[in-house]
């Protein structure tokens, strides 16, 4: 079994280039739910699936406790999106597009993408490639572990360009806004 740190970084800060998400400071119950989802297939992932299946339930919980308690420094050198994509991403994130029944991301994930509780993880500072991949996984149905199927409905209404734009917007937001980064 490879060490989590080999992809997610020494203190769980993630890796923007590889698209590996930040784990540091995320809610314990969220992290535990995701590991359980990788194990039971409701979050289908070729790397994380076998890893999670190889962990006992109490080991998955222990990892969630560990990473929830870590405080990784903010990532460096996050690429800034170009102006057009940024404006579109910000609009979707902060205002939504109600003619398509799309609420603002901020209405559940917090005004600065800092996350709310165990069900709505922080988006700020997560790698753009990671965020875009999640939207596409919900759309494709390979990730279906979201409460009430909320993200499936949202992802279905986003075009590929919109998903890219909103992912770039959140990737560029400062991670200091995340609760865990306090």
């Amino acid at each position, binding site marked *: 079994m490879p060490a989590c740190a080999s992809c997610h970084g020494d203190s769980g800060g993630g890796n923007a280039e590889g698209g590996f998400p930040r784990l540091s400071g995320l809610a314990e119950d969220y992290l535990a739910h995701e590991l359980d989802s990788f194990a039971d297939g409701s979050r289908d992932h070729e790397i994380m699936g076998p890893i999670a299946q190889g962990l006992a339930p109490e080991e998955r919980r222990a990892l969630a406790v560990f990473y929830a308690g870590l405080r990784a420094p903010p990532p460096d050198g996050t690429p800034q999106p170009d102006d057009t994509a940024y404006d579109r991403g910000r609009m979707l994130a902060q205002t939504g597009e109600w003619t398509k029944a799309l609420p603002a991301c901020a209405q559940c994930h917090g005004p600065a993408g*800092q996350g709310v509780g165990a069900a709505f993880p922080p988006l700020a500072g997560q790698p753009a490639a990671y965020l875009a991949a999640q939207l596409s996984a919900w759309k494709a149905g390979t990730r279906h572990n979201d409460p009430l199927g909320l993200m499936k409905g949202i992802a279905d209404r986003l075009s590929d360009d919109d998903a890219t734009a909103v992912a770039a917007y959140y990737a560029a937001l400062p991670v200091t806004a995340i609760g865990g980064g306090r």
Partner: protein
Amino acid sequence: MNLMTRFTGRSAARLALATAMGGLAVLTPLGSVGAETTAPPFVPQPDSAISDDDFGQVIRLGERIFRDTGAEARAFVGNDLRCTNCHLDRGRLGHSAPLWAAYLVYPAYRAKNRHVNTFAERLQGCFRYSMNGKAPPLGDPVLVALETYAAFLAHGAPVGMKLPGQGYPKLAKPKGLDLAHGREVYAAKCALCHGGDGAGQASPDGTIVFPPLWGARSYNWGAGMSSVVNAAGFIKANMPLSQGNSLTDAEAWDVAAYIDSRERPQDPRFTGDLAATRKAHHDSPYDFYGQAVDGVTLGEGAPPAGTVPH
């Protein structure tokens, strides 16, 4: 004239037309959401139409107050709600009491206070009841900005008629309200965001993200949303957020009844006599004020009305 009367007339006309043409009439259930959604709601002009001058500045201020009410109108807000919690998409969305429709309804006679209300007076009511705060005086910059923002949104909408999407949908009246069922629906569909205790949820830095639905930080017993009729219509059309119209009418009624049968801040019109206040302002089977629910007489131990920060 209420919405139901209006759409009864329209459905009857449609039936007559279809019959005359020899076609099969498809009856829309009277008073249902379906009847109201046949015409698409008005779409207000985009933010980009806000002029870059002193007038536009006031529109923008109104929009900010609407979004971030506690911060932008602090002296008048006594709870953790924002205008946008009940008027979704910054007052733009049909079937969510859109601001463009409300603006055009006033001046209007209101049974609630038995006189003709201007739009500004109506806005005062929002602060007094829904925001559990205190009414900004007429002419206050907060009211002026909100009214200007509302006028901006109403630009181009027809005056003098009921607009599709005005207010909240009026659901067909239920046979009864089932609070036990409402509690189940709440746990399954609402608690995720609003919390099992209805207190809402904040992000780790303390920003309220999901509004409280009852308790000391929510709307008070005088608010329109404390009527199960309004809450059921709002919930049916808009909740869970992004999944509007996914609940059955019975689920919307019962969960609205569950939410509106929990304790919340006192009605500012409370005279000290619960029964008399109920009779004067809450005399409806869709209003739980003064009623005993789960061993609590609602309104008896209510948190105070009008709690604004000092």
